[in-house]
């Protein structure tokens, strides 16, 4: 059996810094899509309890240690970095399907809002918020945590998303430098 080397979606790219903005890859250990079966929501809630999580309301996420649950659609959420076995939901393992990008810094919302057409300022999108929204033409999951933003895009679009965010950071930083 040959030994295969697993590569992350953005392997080979080093974190990028422009001004006070920094971009790096986030590697999730696992991403499980949870879709509760009709009438099984309570059973699913019970199954999530030991993880310190509950099924999230639309446009929200919750964190418990390294585990996270993110709303991703009607009757659908992503459970990140935690295992789960329950007959109450359709569970699909999407761990290798997504790339994670972390954008941090005081101007992160301003930079990301050049690509994502929703209000990401902390007044409208505080930590604990999550949205399905386009990043330019890429469907994305946008999350805000205490530490900054994380964006998930389909793995096949990892480098496009990286390039576009990095270029935008450069422009925002350049404009800041002129002030």
């Amino acid at each position, binding site marked *: 059996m040959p030994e295969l080397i697993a590569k992350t979606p953005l392997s080979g790219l080093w974190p990028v810094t422009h001004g006070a903005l920094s971009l790096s890859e986030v590697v999730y250990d696992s991403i499980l899509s949870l879709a509760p*079966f*009709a009438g099984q929501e309570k059973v699913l809630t019970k199954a999530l309890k030991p993880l310190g999580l509950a099924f999230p309301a639309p446009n929200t996420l919750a964190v418990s240690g390294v585990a996270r649950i993110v709303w991703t*659609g009607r009757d659908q959420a992503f459970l990140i970095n935690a295992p789960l076995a329950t*007959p109450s939901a359709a569970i699909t393992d999407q761990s290798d399907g997504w790339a994670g990008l972390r954008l941090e810094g005081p101007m992160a919302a301003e930079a990301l809002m050049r690509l994502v057409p*929703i209000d990401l300022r902390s007044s409208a999108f505080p930590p604990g918020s999550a949205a399905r929204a386009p990043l330019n033409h890429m469907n994305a999951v946008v999350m805000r945590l205490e530490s900054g933003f994380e964006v998930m895009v389909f793995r096949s679009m990892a480098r496009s998303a990286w390039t576009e965010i990095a270029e935008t950071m450069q422009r925002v930083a350049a404009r800041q430098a002129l002030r």
Partner: protein
Amino acid sequence: MRLTCPLCGPRDRREFYYYGADDYLHRPAPDAPPAAWDDYLHNRDNPAGMLRDLWYHEAGCGQWLAVSRNTVSHDITAVECVAPLRPARKKAVRNED
């Protein structure tokens, strides 16, 4: 133009895919007369006034939405999820192993 998705909130038009009048939600019975099928598949009103049409939140939550829109004033008076409007789905079939 913006649509307020019942799940995602107010969103830009570019996030949606337009599908046309909501006649597609009213599928005739399999044994309905050909005229009913003709109406369902091909015939559409073109009202000056209120119209209810279908939009897909493609770059957002992935839900079909029924949008009430006035073709004269461009007012959008309601945006509803199509899914909960349908009769309750049959109990999901599961493999209990």
